Every structure is written in C-alpha cells, then in structure tokens.
C-alpha cells in the first residue's frame, strides 16, 4: 500500500482535531449539559469527518464537523429524549445573591430546560455566532423556523434570568 498519502492525511486531520476540538467540545457541552455525552458526540462527529476528509475543504472542515455534530446530537436527542437530565431551575428569594459563577451555572441550567430545537438554535446563534441562514442550513430547517425558535428561546431565558435578577435584588 502507499503509506505516504495516508500518513499525510492523518497528519492534517490530527492538526484539525487539535485546533477544532476545544470549540467543538464546548458547543457539544452547551447542547448536552454533560461532559461525557459531549465527548462522545464530538468523537463521533470527528469519525465522520475523517471518513469524508478527502472531500472536506480545510476551510470548511469545522463547519462540516459542527453540522455532523448537531445531526448526531439530533439522533441522540431522539434516542434519549426522556433521559436528558434537566437541571433544576433556581427560584425563590431564598437564593443567595448572584455571583459570576452562579450566572454561568444558571444560564446553562436554563439552557438545558429549553426544548431541543430552541436550545440548538440558541447555542448555534449566540455561542457559535452563526447567522440565521447558517443555522437553518446546519439544522436543515427554514430561516423562519430559526427565527421562531430563537425568539421563543430568548423569551424564555430572558424571563427566567430577569425573574432571577429581580429575586436577587
């Protein structure tokens, strides 16, 4: 067998994994709220990317993997729909005053409580900073559906966060 081509391919792919995996892991964690599930998702998405590597342009590799990841995530949601652990949403005036760390934890818990589609759209729009069009392409839905999901997701988060802020004051 010719090993040179395979070695060059593996080397380039390894570089890509090193560069892209931190961002992919963060995205997957925001989508799942679970480090292990996020790791498995990214690993599975990277396997598919490796298979498609000869046809994935270097500049499009991250977008390709992200799309696979979100689709993998869709599969996982469908398989484990009733197993997703939703964090407890803090409420009530007995909560301690907010801190930066608590804010971070709270937004993640609130995110986990959103319906799947809204959570995906919120993460892709406001964490990965993708355009509405790009999110629509990624999720294979219409731009209108992206707008709708983003609007509903933001409204829920805003209401919860505002309530929480009010409660703290």
């Amino acid at each position, binding site marked *: 067998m010719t090993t040179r081509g395979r070695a060059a391919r593996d080397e380039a792919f390894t570089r890509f994994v*090193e560069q892209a995996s931190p961002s992919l892991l963060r995205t997957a964690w925001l989508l799942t709220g679970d*480090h292990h599930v996020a790791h498995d998702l*990214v690993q599975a998405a990277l*396997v*598919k990317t*490796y298979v498609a590597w000869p046809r994935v342009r270097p500049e499009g590799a991250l977008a390709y993997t992200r799309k696979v990841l979100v689709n993998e995530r869709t*599969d996982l949601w469908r398989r484990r729909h009733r197993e997703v652990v939703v964090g407890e949403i803090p409420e009530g005036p007995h909560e301690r005053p907010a801190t930066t760390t608590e804010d971070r934890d709270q937004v993640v818990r609130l995110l986990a409580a959103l319906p799947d589609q809204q959570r995906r759209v919120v993460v892709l729009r406001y964490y990965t*900073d993708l355009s509405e069009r790009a999110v629509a392409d990624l999720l294979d839905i219409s731009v209108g559906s992206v707008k709708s999901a983003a609007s509903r997701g933001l409204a829920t988060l805003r209401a919860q966060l505002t309530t929480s802020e009010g409660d703290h004051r």
Partner: protein
Amino acid sequence: MSPDIFEDELRGQLRSAADAEAGAFLDIDTASVIGSGARIIRRRRMAAAGGTLALAVVAGLGAWAVLAQGTPDALDEVPATQSGTPTPSATATGVVEARVPDGAKGTVLVRLDTDRRTLSAELPGGGAQDRAVEVGTLSAGRSEVLYGRVSEDPLVVVGVLPAGATSFSPVISEQRGVSTGDAELAGTGYRAFVVRGQREDRGTEVTDVYWTDGRAVRTADGRTVESAAMGDRIAYHDQQGGMFGVVTPEGWGNVPTSDDTDTGLPPEALMGVRRDASAMDTTYAVLLPPGAEDVSVDLAPDATLEDSTTSALGDRATVMLARLTTPPESEGSGVTQVHWTDATGRHDVGHAGALTTPGSGVEIGVYGVTLDGATTVHLVRFDDAGRPVVTDVDASDLPAEGRLVECLPDGGAVCAALPDEAKDITLLDVLGRELGGQAGWDQVDVPGAGVHVVVASPGAEGLAVAQLRWTGVDGRTHTLGFE
C-alpha cells in the same frame, strides 16, 4: 432588558460558562477517531471492491482469449478539466415543479424558483400537512449541481443536475444501498433528482454526485474527470476523488482508488445486468499503469468476449474497457487474468478469490502476480484500522512441500502456497502434536500460476502453529514449517 443588550449578555454568559468548563473536558482520542474512521473506509472499500476482492473462485483455468488491442483513438478520451460543463438554457419563468420518483415507491415534489434560483422540496407530512424544505440557491450565471438533504430518517436528498445529464451516481458516505429517481424541470435547463436511503441506515450522507452527459463524467462541482467512452459505455478515473468506475446504460459501477485502498493490484470496475434467463451482460474495466501495452485478459470458460478496447486515460493511466457475456448464475466478472506490458516488464495478474479464515472469519483476498515470469502470491487482508495488509509469498521457485507464512497476527491463521491441490490439512505445534479438533482450513487455486493457496487456523486462541502437514491429490504427504 432590551433584546440587543440581553443577546450580548447571553453571548457573554455562554462563552464564560463554556470557557469555565475547559479543564473538565476529556481529551479527544485522535488515534481512536482515525482508527474508527479507517474501519468505516475499509468497510466501504470492501463493499465497493466486491468486484475485485470477491471475484469468484475459478474452477480450473480459464479459456485463453486475447482481446483485440484497441487503438488509442478507439476510445473517445476526455481529459480532466475544470471547465466545459454544459450551460443549461432556461426558457421557463417563475416556479417550475416536478414530481420526482424516489425509487422506493414514493415521490418528492421538487420546486425550482427560476427568478430567485432557489430549490426546495415538499415532503409528505405523514397524514399531516406536507412539509416544504429549502435545499439551496443556485449560483447566478453558472451551471452546477446543487443538492441537499431534506430528510434525515430516512435519508432523502434532493438536487438538480444540468438537463444534459444522461445519468448520475451519488457517492454515499457509508457503503449503503440507496434508490434514486429523476425528472425534468421543464424549461429550466435542469433535471431534478432524488436520492433515498434505507430507514435503518442512519448517518448515511451523499458526499458527491457523479454525472455524465454521455461523453464524459463530471463531479458535482463541475470538474470533468478522466473519461473514455466505448459506444454507450464510459470508463472514468477521478484521481482527486479516488474513484475508478464504469458507466453503462444500465447503471454505474465503481471502486475506490485512494491511497487508503491501494493494494498494488490494478483496480477493476464492473457493471453487470441480466439480459435474460440465460445470460448476463457485464461491462468490465481495469485501470492499468500509463503506457501499458499488449493488454489482454483470460476469460472463465463460460464467459464470452463481445467487445473491448484499450486507451490512455489521461497521462497517468491506461484503461481497458470490455463487454462480456456470462451465465446469470456465474460469480465475478468472467475475467480470470489480466496481462499487460509496461516500463517495468510483462505483468500477469490472476484473481483467485477470497479465503475466509476458519473461526475468526477474516477475509483474505488471493492474487497471483507474475512479473517477467516470476510469480508472487499476494494475500490481502485489512487490519483493524482499515489499512490493507499485503503478505507476499514467493511462488516462483516453489519447493515440493510449498511455503508457509503467518497470515493473521499472533498465530491466528497460517497460509501456505502449495504446488498441488491439498486433500487434507493438519496443523502441528512446535512439538509435532496435532492441534485441536477446532482447526479448519480453506483453499483456492491461483489461475495461471499453478499455485494452490491454503489458509488454516488452529480454531482456538493460544495454540501456536509451528508446522502444516498436507496430503496432495497424489496421496503424498508433506510437512511444512516456517522458513
């Protein structure tokens, strides 16, 4: 809190939350990723290379048939190029629809908005309202293939091709079966197509679309690959995409040719279709080195050569394209050996078929390769990472007892090249004791080489094979150790 301020704060909180978790993430195991990916590639390759690795075990030597050497201009050669895609001529305006069969008893309504150049599809809603899905937008001023997934489960991909396309072949990420259909989008210069996967084949993706106008083969991005036509049949070699194949009026057949799949043997592509109850028409193509001359093939006794020709395929390859007739029940292509001469000498490559190791079920492809009279047996298997592992056995001066090699690691199986057909095989350990009742063996003949190849396994782990004892058809028994 205003929406803009809130959105900015949300962005900040999401980033802050994700960054704060950085230390908690498990490292990605790149080696594991590559290993898993390579195994998938290997499975695809094995499935796609069925015409090569799973060629029938040939009973006896084939009848010798020399193909008429085609002159270079006998093939209509089309070089690889980035241009030359036919430009669709549009006469329609507004939205043009076509109901496209998906090849699985269903249809998909495909819409092309000629003003906005947008493509969309409407999928049956399963009793509810039908669901419209946008596919994408065609670039202005250029012809192209546009496609996109509109359903994940089952996979449904909708796209358009230039109307001049006579047939197409989707490249599937996993080597799975898909059905296809197409229909004209009248007056738009495009044809709509649909690719539908099996419901259970989740994760399948269309990674490219080969298509032809009957003269050359092109990729989805309009790149023309090295193509050569013989009548209504085309051989093509996509070096960039790593694929070699044939296009016939009945369909496409192809094999990967990338570094991952290179075994050093000439890739072959097949497309067979049953003509009637008594015959199958097979189109056979083999990709040879540049400058290959005196190309010929041997045929199985039940195969008949109908037509053939040979030509350069660009400046990096030579292709032989042939049409054969074989009985419908025959396995393989009907070609048992390929012969050619190139700068390195005279080559004779024979296909023996595949051996399966007893117990572990590993497939080992067996080939006889003769260069200027010296024969080497290639034993080809694939490791856990999907890489081909080729074990060579020198069969040019085969001793009377044969030669023994390890063909699976850790004593999992041994292979032997024998000068005679074996009637009985026994495996022995280092003390000469017979190994177990679970041992098994299999055998094939290498056509044209006078070599018989045996694979034998002790059938249980931890049993180290030191010798192989075999009895030939002449009744003589030989004991064979590792050299």
